[in-house]
């Protein structure tokens, strides 16, 4: 009987929550580190196409994102596909100066290794995509990634 008693009383003491802040802080740091505050998709909406042969690019510092999509605010920007980078809408002729500016921010030895992550909506016509590609060639930014998501029904 007395054994029961002692068990009961010990159960009454609460679990120590001293480690809780540490756990939470660990999670917090994880999210703080992985968070990238992006400005690039402010004006456009796009749904990237899906594909199977995707490659993950790890050289984050070399990546510059350019997106092509339909403006969210159709009354202001029209319903034609537009180009956007770093939160600003660009005309085709603005792409070369933009890439040059991005290249200047990279260390000298890796300027020509700049990688362009092209996020285009799956329904935009190839015309505008091709215009962007031509400009990228002019700016000598020739490594390009056509952003895509995993295909759902992949069986590989």
């Amino acid at each position, binding site marked *: 009987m007395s054994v029961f008693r002692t068990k009961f009383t010990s159960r009454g003491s609460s679990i120590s929550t001293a480690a809780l*802040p540490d756990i*939470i802080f660990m999670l917090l740091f994880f999210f703080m580190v992985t*968070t990238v*505050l992006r400005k690039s998709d402010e004006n456009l909406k796009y749904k990237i196409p899906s594909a199977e042969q995707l490659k993950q690019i*790890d050289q984050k510092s070399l990546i510059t994102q350019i997106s092509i999509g339909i403006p969210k605010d159709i009354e202001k920007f029209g319903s034609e596909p537009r180009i956007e980078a770093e939160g600003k809408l660009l005309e085709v002729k603005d792409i070369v100066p933009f890439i040059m500016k991005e290249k200047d921010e990279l260390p000298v030895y890796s300027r020509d290794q700049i990688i362009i992550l092209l996020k285009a909506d799956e*329904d935009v*016509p190839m015309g505008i995509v091709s215009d962007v590609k031509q400009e990228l060639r*002019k700016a000598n930014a020739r490594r*390009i990634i*056509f952003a895509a998501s995993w295909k759902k029904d992949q069986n590989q």
Partner: protein
Amino acid sequence: MEKTIMRSFERRKTEINSSSMADIAFLLLIFFLVTTTIQTNRGLSATLPPHTDEPDIAKFHDRNLYKIHINSSDRILVEDASFENFEKLHADVKKFILNHGNDPLLSDNPKDAIISLHMNRGTHYKRFIEVMDALQGVYYEIYGERVGLTAKQFRALDLKLANEKAQYDKAREGIPMNISIADPNKIN
């Protein structure tokens, strides 16, 4: 005198109440949870040709060119014949690349074999990605087979590691990924 000093010492030992620390951390955590969008750098990688002022016209022997056209209504024409399905395209392209001069209609060798992808300005990006995906899939499969990997394992090779880089180089040796993306024209 001595007593007061003693007392202040004792007082300093009392700790700050840290029970609200968890709450503060939670609040920050929730903020970051909500704002986080883990950026994905995944996609089909490609290298564009250098810029030239003249139009890019190059002469290739017809047998070394595998022509794929996509028109503005996303219909595909493969080697002047109608497109059937991606499985057949995959098999045909693979046969074309690895022909090594056997069939007079297909490529001389993998080095010279060029897949020419030609599109219209009105072609949808989605269709382009589908075809590009299929073509790159053929190459990755070939590369993988040369070093005993699947296409997926080949794509995941880490080039920073010496042994994986060696595998990668061995697989790609002599078979460049010749996928040419021509400028789309406005007509037809």
